[in-house]
């Protein structure tokens, strides 16, 4: 993922975000004009001083107030109309597109559980902390939470939507340009709220389909003795208590699915780039990188960590 990371509402990559950006600029200019006008008026008032005001006739005063109120109403109407138009535009994607991709994202402290839904259950894909979406195709994301209130914000694609325990919310978005966009939890959700990022990779449709097909495959069988030993560490060690690696005995659901961990660009929900060194450091002492996260130091020996890394690197 050499692409520059985009986390800005002013660099929209999709139709929703473009509308929101448009509204942002309208707000910016209207508010700027109002601000400048108010400051100028205030300045004039200060310069002219008290004497002039008292000499103004009742009629002049009434006209001035009327102009000010009129301008305010106009500014307000412009903003309301723009707001309504943008709101409608943003909502228009929700109209069920049969071609739409459906994803379910469940918030956890402090990571994102991701499922690509499908009417054929055997085609459902589970992953975590990084989603791929096809360019030019609407994506409906169902949002849930397993613990506290979180909020999903991918500024380059859309506004925020809250994830609320016991309720189901939804957000529709679409990327119009390929790229890597950073999403972030936008509702304070505990100690590591800041390190709860969601990577969004907008792929060209063919790349996306290739990626999704790859995600549907179980973990490959280990090919070297070291990898075999690594798989053994996953299954017999503490990993399997919380993580899932499809194709092995590991079926935990309290932590991110690791079946394709090597294909993700970061670890710890955007805490560190996914390199062998970072991953090793994370496994040995996760509390150093992201204090308070739910992964304990598993107490693995170096004879276990190296084969484990060899194995995890095969999980593409």
């Amino acid at each position, binding site marked *: 993922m050499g692409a520059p990371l985009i986390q800005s509402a002013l660099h929209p990559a999709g139709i929703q975000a473009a509308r929101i950006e448009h509204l942002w600029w309208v707000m910016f200019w209207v508010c700027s004009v109002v601000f400048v006008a108010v400051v100028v008026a205030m300045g004039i008032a200060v310069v002219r001083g008290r004497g002039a005001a008292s000499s103004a006739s009742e009629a002049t005063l009434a006209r001035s107030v009327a102009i000010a109120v009129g301008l305010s109403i106009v500014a307000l109407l412009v903003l309301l109309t723009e707001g309504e138009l943008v709101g409608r535009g943003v909502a228009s994607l929700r109209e069920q597109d049969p071609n739409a991709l459906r994803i379910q994202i469940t918030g956890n402290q402090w990571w994102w559980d991701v499922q690509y839904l499908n009417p054929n259950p055997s085609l459902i894909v589970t992953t975590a902390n990084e989603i791929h979406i096809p360019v030019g195709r609407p994506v409906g994301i169902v949002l849930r939470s397993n613990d506290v209130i979180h909020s999903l914000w991918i500024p380059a694609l859309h506004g925020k939507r809250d994830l609320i*325990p016991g309720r189901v919310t939804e957000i529709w978005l679409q990327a119009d340009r390929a790229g890597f966009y950073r999403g972030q939890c936008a509702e304070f959700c505990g100690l590591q709220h800041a390190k709860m990022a969601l990577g969004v990779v907008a792929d060209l449709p063919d790349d996306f389909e290739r990626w999704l097909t790859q995600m549907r495959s179980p973990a490959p069988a280990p090919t070297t003795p070291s990898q075999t030993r690594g798989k053994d560490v996953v299954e017999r*060690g*503490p990993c*399997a*208590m*919380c993580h899932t690696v499809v194709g092995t005995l590991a079926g935990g659901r309290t932590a991110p699915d690791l079946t394709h961990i090597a294909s993700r660009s970061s670890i710890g929900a955007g805490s560190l780039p996914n390199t062998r060194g970072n991953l090793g450091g994370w496994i040995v002492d996760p509390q150093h990188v992201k204090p308070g996260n739910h992964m304990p*130091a598993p*107490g693995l020996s170096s004879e276990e960590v190296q084969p484990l890394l060899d194995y995890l690197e095969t999980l593409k």
Partner: protein
Amino acid sequence: MRRLMCLLACVAVAAAGCEREARRYTELPAAANRSTAVRLTMLQPGSPQPLSNVQSPYQYNAYGLSEGKRLYAAYNCAGCHGLNGGGAIGPALTDDKWIYGSHADQLFSTISQGRPDGMPSFGGHIPDQQIWQLVAYVQSLAGMVSQDAATSRNDDQAAAKPENRIEDARQIQTGHR
């Protein structure tokens, strides 16, 4: 050649005999020759030594107790001992009956070692720190930790009183000492 082999065999047999006949009077360093036991029984030979008063480091710690509660569900303890400790496949934890003891070190060894009548051995599968958190939470299920540190209302279906409001288990008609 054959003679040499014969000789070697004899030496080997003699060496094995050395091992058999060795009298090691100080196998362990003197200081390491008497360990303290995690006792599962009051009964001891001779005059009894006091049971250890080891406590979970999380006994008075709200965060550790709430982590224990989270792990109790995450590691499927709840599946056997009941979501709120009332028991199912495994015995109830909310009452004041303890098969293998209610002391922190007894509970630690029960979780870590497992027990032959069905309790799985979690040692090596989960870190010791988490076992101590579970120990404190299990004690809280029986009202054995201070109420201000114990976890409270469930996020899920409220099918029992919260751990910080549990009645003294001894209110049910059981003998006690």
